[in-house]
């Protein structure tokens, strides 16, 4: 099966505080509809890799392909468009815009994309929220809802533009077991029902075991594929 996200010989160095080779010859791919977990100890470079894959970090050597298109070397403006349209991102610490309502938070990336009418975007956003069972929170301020709810809002936001791939940087790292379970089930459901590709960095072994595939990293290399 074809890879939708693929890296070839990615190397990355940290220059500060001293020269450090973080990622060494990373070459791997994520297939469509695959639920992949990246595991590894702190400092193994797994988050660094994820940020390169997300196109936010451009300071690396090697090539990154998204949907068979070379992403490496594109301008910041093009990269932000790619992120906007093709990549959904969920962080460890929810990261909602606290001054906006839940609904507005979810709608923002779609408004930026500007492919649909505002009414359509709103309907879509509401639908995503319903799907994650938080439709009733739509008009709350983002700062007024609980941690688990925030993470689900963040997922809804990541999904609003129907991305090619959803990336998570320890999306359950800050949640209790009940909410973690909840988030895992949501991911699972997205994969099964919508064929969404997922790539999640995690420390949580229980979480990782239930995914399709685990990539183990150590000292900047992929050890099990």
């Amino acid at each position, binding site marked *: 099966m074809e890879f939708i996200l693929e890296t070839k010989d990615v190397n990355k160095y940290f220059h500060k505080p001293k020269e450090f080779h973080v990622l060494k010859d990373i070459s791997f791919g994520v297939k469509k509809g695959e639920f992949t977990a990246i595991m590894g100890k702190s400092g193994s470079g797994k*988050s660094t890799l994820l*940020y390169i894959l*997300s196109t*936010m*970090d451009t300071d690396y050597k090697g090539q990154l392909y998204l949907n068979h298109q070379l992403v490496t070397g594109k301008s*910041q*403006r093009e990269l*932000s*468009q790619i*992120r*906007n*349209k093709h990549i959904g*991102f969920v*962080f460890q610490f929810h*990261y*909602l*815009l*606290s*001054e*906006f309502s839940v609904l*507005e938070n979810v709608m*923002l*990336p779609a*408004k*930026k*994309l*500007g492919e649909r009418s*505002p009414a359509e975007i709103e309907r879509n956003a509401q639908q995503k929220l319903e799907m994650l069972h938080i439709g009733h929170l739509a008009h709350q301020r983002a700062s007024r809802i609980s941690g688990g709810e925030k993470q689900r809002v963040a997922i809804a*936001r990541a999904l609003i*533009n129907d991305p090619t791939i959803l990336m998570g*940087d320890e999306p359950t790292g800050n949640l209790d077991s009940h909410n973690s379970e909840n988030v895992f089930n949501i991911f699972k459901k997205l994969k099964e029902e919508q064929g969404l590709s997922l790539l999640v960095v995690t420390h949580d072994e229980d979480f990782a075991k239930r995914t399709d595939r685990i990539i183990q990293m150590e000292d900047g290399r992929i050890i099990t594929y």
Partner: protein
Amino acid sequence: MINWNVILGIAKTHLLTKMKSTVTATLGVTFGIGSYITLVSFMTGLNTMLDDLVLNQTPHIHIYNEIRPSANQPVALYEDFKNAFNVIRSIKPKLSQKKIHNALPMLNYLKKQPNVHGATPQLRAQIFYLSGSMELGGNLTGVDIMEEVRLSNLRDNIVEGSPEALKNNENGILLGSGLAEKMSLSLGDRVQISTVSGNIFPLKIVGIYQSGIADVDNVQSFTNLKTVQRILGEAENYVTDINIKLTDITEAQSMADQLEKQFNVKAMGINEANAQFETGSNIRNLITYAVSITLLIVAGFGIYNILNMLIYEKMKDIAILKATGFSGTDVQLIFMAQAMIIGMAGGIMGLSIGFALSKIIDQAPFETEALPTITTYPVNYDPVYYIIGIIFALVSTFVAGYLPSKRAKKIDPVKIIRGT
């Protein structure tokens, strides 16, 4: 493809949720612009008034016969001394008449010039005002009164009576207010004047003239040109001065030079006569601008600070926006939009406050002996200052917003999200 709705929407939410900072920043601009408008309106109002006080009494070009020694002394004509070094002692001014040669044809010529707004003949005579046994020295100027009124602010300076009354009375006089006070005379009374040669004439006071400059009001009176000609026993072409108003004051000097050559008379341009005056008003303008620009710069720094703090607070938001697909330019525009909204709102409020304060100053009573026609403080409502005000508000907020927003543009989302 910049989506202004989204950008303005985010900017609006930021501004509304940080109401305190927004209001502080806006008030900074408001006070800056407000005080600029007030100050500039008031200062230029005063300047204009002071300028008018002197300039309206001064013709743009003043033509007269100057009493001076002849440049070519007779000895220069004497062949034998041609190559000698001649020393002449005790040179006396050349004996010539005070009147301007061919004054009436010259007037006709001047009136036909396209850049001449008007030219009026005057006859200035040294006379004495008689009050009982007292003799007060003074000047009596014969004028074409209606032309003078048209070309200068003479009407404003006639505090009692009217120029029309003088026009209709062959023996009328507009008496200087200082003189009227000294001699205890008022409108309708008669005053006796005596020429240098001793002839005495009674004239009827049809108006009181007050220029606001005491030295002038203590000696100067006006009457009709013909009256003075009659008193002096001179013909109708006897004119000692010609005053010219131009349509464009900047041509005064060049035209004066040209007239001097053309008619062999002394012609003095307004700049020559009032050089020190222009310096004074230039310096006053300079002070006004220095103070205004200081105020506006202070307001600009206020905006800079507040936006900087706002961006510092919003680091995480900026990182999220970038992670979800907003470009650096989008983020910069969000903060620039906030700065410009603050600038626009503050600027407009500043203009309104400045206008209101100017109105209040305009109402404040200001009465002074020196300025008979002015009862309240003068204020200049020139719209140019309002346009400068709003432009400066926008420019200063643009600059103040540009630097912090540039920083927001460059924020690396990975660094913020990973907390390094």
